């Protein structure tokens, strides 16, 4: 499996950055996650962090090195994140629970499948054109839901579902979408799409390698957002191929059988689950992961 990935999160004019993103991959499967903790409820950044950790840790357990059923996995992972947020709120006797959006994309067998809840988006860009993107769970993108409620006109940006609320979240599941070489998939928080038009996002993303396109897009969004800009978070990858081949520079090389690589950090928050000590399997996995990193660094530097 070969892909080129780049991610960045920058704080806008807000006090906190409640966005979280990360990716993980094994030899045969990759996962990309982005969550945007919601304001108006407590500890949005905790919700986003829980989403990231819950999904990635389930991936870590299930992808050995591939997922048996990608859609079932996505379903389970997102719901498990939702339940962990409620458990977190309960454990702290919070009167209101922390909430977040989430968008998760899994790549396996050369196809991408994704799930989302809320208004963090996924774009699929092919040859500089947007092939598709997710539809936000907002009244702006589902106007009939707002109209049907029969009440006052609602704020179009308000979401009608998210993770962490007492209501069971609505999660949209995509089709299994085969990827072509050079296809780009981009996950972003509303800090990006609220400032940049879809066309601008896809043309910049299509015209440059992700390592250049992503920082450029984020910079444009922050500039466009001005002093009051929202936080802008993007993780994007360029698909190369599903095979195991020699890797050109800059592309992520493939991993040994049981190996696992991740940018998701597991010990970042004050969360009951986080004070769990490492279990045997987690220790073994950490050691394998570090040795894998040593091996890759040695290969890269000819050490």
């Amino acid at each position, binding site marked *: 499996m070969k892909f080129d990935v780049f991610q960045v*999160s920058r704080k806008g004019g807000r006090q906190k950055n409640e966005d979280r993103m990360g990716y993980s991959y094994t030899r045969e499967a990759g996962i990309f996650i982005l969550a945007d903790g919601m304001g108006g409820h407590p500890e949005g*950044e905790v919700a986003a962090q829980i989403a990231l950790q819950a999904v990635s840790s389930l991936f870590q357990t299930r992808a050995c090195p591939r997922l048996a059923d990608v859609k079932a996995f996505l379903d389970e992972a997102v719901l498990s994140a939702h339940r962990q947020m409620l458990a977190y709120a309960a454990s702290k006797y919070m009167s209101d629970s922390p909430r977040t959006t989430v968008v998760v994309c899994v790549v396996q067998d050369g196809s991408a499948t994704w799930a989302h809840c809320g208004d963090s988006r996924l774009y699929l860009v092919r040859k500089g054109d947007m092939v598709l993107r997710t539809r936000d769970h907002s009244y702006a993108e589902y106007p009939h839901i707002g109209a049907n409620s029969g009440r006052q006109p609602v704020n179009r940006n308000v979401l009608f579902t998210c993770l962490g609320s007492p209501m069971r979240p609505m999660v949209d599941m995509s089709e299994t979408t085969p990827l072509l070489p050079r296809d780009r998939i981009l996950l972003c928080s509303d800090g990006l799409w609220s400032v940049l038009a879809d066309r601008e996002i896809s043309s910049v993303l299509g015209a440059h390698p992700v390592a250049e396109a992503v920082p450029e897009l984020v910079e444009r969004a922050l500039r466009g957002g001005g002093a009051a800009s929202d936080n802008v978070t993007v993780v994007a990858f360029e698909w190369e191929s599903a095979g195991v081949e020699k890797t050109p520079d800059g592309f992520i090389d493939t991993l040994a059988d049981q190996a696992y690589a991740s940018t998701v950090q597991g010990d970042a928050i*004050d969360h009951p689950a986080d004070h769990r*000590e490492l279990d045997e399997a987690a220790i073994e996995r*950490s*050691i394998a992961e*570090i*040795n894998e990193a*040593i091996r890759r*660094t040695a290969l890269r530097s000819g050490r």
Partner: protein
Amino acid sequence: MPAPLSKSKPSPLAPDTAIGGYRVVRRISAGGFGIVYLARSPEGHHVAIKEYLPSSLASRAPDQLVPYVAAEKLSLYRLGLKSFFEEGRALAQISHTSVVSVLNFFRENETVYMVMNYLEGDTLQDFIITARDQRAQKVFRESTIRSLFDEVLRGLRIVHQHKMLHLDIKPANIFLTDDNKAVLIDFGAAREVLNKEVYFVRPMYTPGFAAPEMYKRDATLGPWTDIYAVGACMYACMQGFPPNDAPQRAAKDKLSVSLSRLRGVYSDHLIDVVKWCMALDPLERPQSVFALQKELGRLIERRYTRLSMTERVRLQLDLLLSDKRKPPRPPAVGGSAAAANGP
């Protein structure tokens, strides 16, 4: 087995003990996290092996291999492992002559071992102490300091490029090898900074070298935090002892005064660079290693300005006046405004 006294340090593994295919030669050092050994690899090379064995949580009898961890401390012990893994992860991604490299990571004796390059030489701290004891006018020559920190900064730049901060740069963690290379060691405090501003576990800090933001709960750490420590190390190379710690400086900043004593001995430029790195306000420091490298590498004619008697008196006066101000605040750095406009 009875729990040994908690005060006793865990015993090191005996010479010739085999661990993970390596053979222990001797103990090199011990710290709060565990013990470092000199060992021999199966191929006969020397390596350094760091054993995870926090002395506050684990103990080991002299003839034992497996550490003893009291049941009530087991969970903290396992939690500490995470930091040990962080260090391994940080180092595993980096290959640079100025950063200690990790070669292997393995589990044995119910604990974890990190195998690193064995470096022959001494720490910068050893050199500073030796030089200071000779009571020379300068601890190090300016050209030595410049080339030493040029190497340190090259290594640190790579570390920052990997989105890591070292967070414990001090002379004891800068190793000078016998073949004259400076190497950053001990990444036990290193953390990945990506995306973690909010929930950051404050590492242990070393007074004098820790930037003011290391003492605060919610400040943002960044390259500038390591840069403060680099400035403090340069200061130690010039003075022979560490600078005052940040809280002392916040109450009463004697940095300008003590640096002024070095005028004439070291170039104005070098002194200004140290001052820049050690600004109490993170925003007033070089914001990246690259910015500091650029300044340090600027080809300029070095000027050595001894301060006049009046200038020195003014600096002292500044310090005195700053003492009487209510509420106390740091004096204007290097400025003589307070003396000129004083009561």
